[in-house]
């Protein structure tokens, strides 16, 4: 047991810091740290910078262009990147599809798609959820019917995050209605510009366009775009959901959000005394700090433990549950820290280039919107209730 960074780990941290200092554009980190909206180019730009350094694919095996980092190094990279205000890496191709391709894809598929994920040729989005298949994902109904060398796909996907920017979508489709619902699902890779695909925005409760509905109307998909075997898609889908666990607890981002909350709580005052000195507030803040301090160790401990491979499912469930609960607690307390100034919401103020006087304190504009937006985190990726079900079944045998 040793909680201190080794000399090698400290040297790695310095290397990451130096890289961020040199390569992360200030215009970008300013946006991230002040809660401004990012454009497609912002996100792609950071993706490209990381790729040039060879630091994009921290979860891939080295032979495919991965970094070969261990759990501690990944955490150092995440902590430093978040603290510096680097944008989140868009995960759909890199962290969700790529592990499936690497484990289950054909050599042709790997050779074609993996380099395109790295160099940004493809922006992937995820076609999992449907209007009638949320937590009960296996009940999905989008049909793919074989017609010669093609599947003909009909149906609808929803909650497709950043689908408006994507040129590719990986989809779970039903290829059989025999047997259990899980046994008739296949995993297809589809070009977004195939005739018959329509993308329609879903505006979220705080007014942003982040997710979409995707409609499939007689969309013809070549059979070679299927991953693995027909009707085995559920296995690949589950692998995708549990494989990339490094950042599932979002420890680095939560630390930054907590530091921002502390900063706000020192500036806000009650009868000229900083809010942070109010006993009720201080107690709530202390609880979050304690939870996050423990979470940081839980995260590293579970990710570096020898049974983390065998127990990947339930362990990522634990990290997801606790990480999202802590994040929502931070968002909730940040909202309350603002008092009445949580209310004003001028949407344009969240876009870069807005140059009018802020209403209230300059840190107030994104806070309530972020609180509302982050109600999603305990719902998506398998709701926290689904995660508890996974823990019950896989870890406890209930």
């Amino acid at each position, binding site marked *: *047991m*040793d*909680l*201190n*960074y*080794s000399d090698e*780990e400290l040297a790695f941290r310095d290397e990451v810091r130096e890289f961020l200092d040199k390569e992360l554009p200030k215009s970008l980190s300013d946006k991230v740290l002040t809660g401004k909206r990012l454009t497609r180019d912002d996100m792609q730009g950071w993706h490209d910078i990381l790729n040039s350094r060879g630091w994009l694919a921290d979860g891939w095996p080295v032979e495919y262009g991965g970094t070969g980092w261990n759990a*501690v190094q990944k955490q150092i990279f995440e902590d430093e990147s978040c603290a510096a205000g680097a944008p989140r890496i868009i995960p759909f191709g890199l962290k969700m599809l790529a592990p499936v391709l690497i484990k289950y894809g054909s050599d042709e598929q790997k050779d074609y798609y993996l380099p395109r994920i790295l160099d940004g040729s493809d922006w992937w989005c995820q076609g999992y959820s449907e209007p009638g298949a949320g937590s009960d994902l296996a009940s999905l109904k989008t049909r793919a019917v074989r017609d010669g060398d093609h599947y003909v796909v009909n149906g609808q996907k929803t909650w497709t995050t950043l689908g408006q920017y994507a040129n590719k979508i990986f989809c779970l489709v039903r290829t059989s209605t025999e047997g259990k619902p899980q046994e008739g699902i296949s995993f297809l890779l589809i070009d977004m510009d195939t005739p018959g695909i329509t993308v329609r925005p879903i505006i979220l409760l705080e007014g942003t366009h982040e997710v979409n509905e995707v409609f499939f109307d007689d969309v013809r998909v070549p059979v070679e775009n299927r991953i693995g075997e027909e009707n085995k898609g559920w296995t690949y889908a589950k692998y995708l959901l549990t494989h990339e666990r490094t950042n599932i607890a979002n420890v680095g981002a939560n630390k930054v959000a907590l530091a921002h909350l502390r900063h706000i709580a020192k500036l806000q005052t009650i009868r000229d005394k900083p809010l942070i*000195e109010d*006993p009720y507030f*201080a*107690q709530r803040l*202390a*609880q979050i*700090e*304690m*939870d996050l*301090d*423990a*979470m*940081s*160790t*839980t995260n*590293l*401990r*579970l990710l*570096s*433990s020898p049974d983390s491979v065998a127990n990947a499912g339930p362990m990522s*469930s*634990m990290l997801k*549950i*606790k990480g999202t609960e802590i994040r929502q607690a931070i968002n909730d307390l940040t909202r309350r820290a603002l008092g009445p100034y949580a209310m004003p919401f001028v949407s344009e103020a969240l876009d870069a280039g807005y140059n009018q006087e802020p209403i209230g304190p300059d840190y107030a504009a994104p806070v309530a919107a972020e609180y509302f937006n982050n109600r999603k985190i305990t719902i998506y990726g398998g709701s926290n*209730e689904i*995660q*508890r*079900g996974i*823990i*019950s079944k896989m*870890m*406890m*045998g*209930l």
Partner: protein
Amino acid sequence: MDFTLTEDRAMLKDMVARFVADNYPLEKRHEIADSADGFSREMWSQFAELGLIGALFSEEDGGFGGAGFDISVLFEELGRGLVVEPFVASAVLAGSVISRLGDDEQKSTLADIIAGGRLAALAHGEPDSRYDVCAVKTTCSRSADGWTLNGNKAVVLNADTADLLVVTARSSGGEWDEDGVCAFLLPADADGVEIRGYPTIDGLRASEISLNDVKVPDSAVLGAEGKAYPAIEMAVARANVALCAESIGLMEICRDITLDYLKTRKQFGVPIGKFQALQHRMATVLTEIEQARSAVINAAGRLELDRIEREKAVSTAKTLCGQVGRLVAEEAIQMHGGIAMTWEYSLPHFAKRLIMIDHQFGDVDYHMARYIELSTAQAA
């Protein structure tokens, strides 16, 4: 960073686990706890022979450990057995103070403490002090041939069987000042020391002590006059790491017993673990235990850092272990139903100890407030 145990500690863990499993079944524990001493002297000397007391002391003091992770590894396993022998009282609390403040003569008692031949206790808390470590009203006044102690000490662990007492008293300063706290090492049967021992609800023994004109020589003073507070604070920090680690062992036992019950107890024709209402609560129990364990690792690993970092980590661990301990104990009882309300069943004895740990050296509210105070001091 490394989250694996060193080979020595892994061996220590296995040895204690095996010894407790083979020699400390619950019926035996009840028998021991019920005895006049409240612990088994025979068991104590076996623990000493196995080197378990020595694991809590540095090599310099004649032990072979003494670091935070030695404490946490040992106490987690002791917790699983609900062991009642006076590890905390004699080795962690009194032993730490003697080790930090004692002169050569006073430190010579450590060899006996480590060997299990002599028992010591720390008489520090008072009827009004609650968990406040600097609240000392007991007085010590200087006279020509030594010191005279007067005052009362409260809920002192294992004082009624101790050979030696470490007693704190105030020579100067206000009631809550850190400065002015003195520590004395004296025989428990010194004139004027009156000890009233009693059982606690979780199977331990504690005592109320009154000190009536207790005369001690100058040689009884531990360390410099009025400067004992940092050593007391450190001893309490070590005791809290021990208690938190013990609570992890208890939580895991409660979890395992409950899990077993969920799989075997049938209602409405199915094992009750098939009900989602219970599954989700059990999943929360598992997740929160991992958080508590992480907090204990953090506290054990930061025990040698500077004071504020150390004390913040200790308060974090005691708060989270208190919160999670209560969750685990209450959920385990509730999910069992009526059977968990009986003396005969195993679970409630673990649950009782788990809950009462919150009452030793600071509960959730105390440590939350203390953490805030330390954070404020750190920011200033």
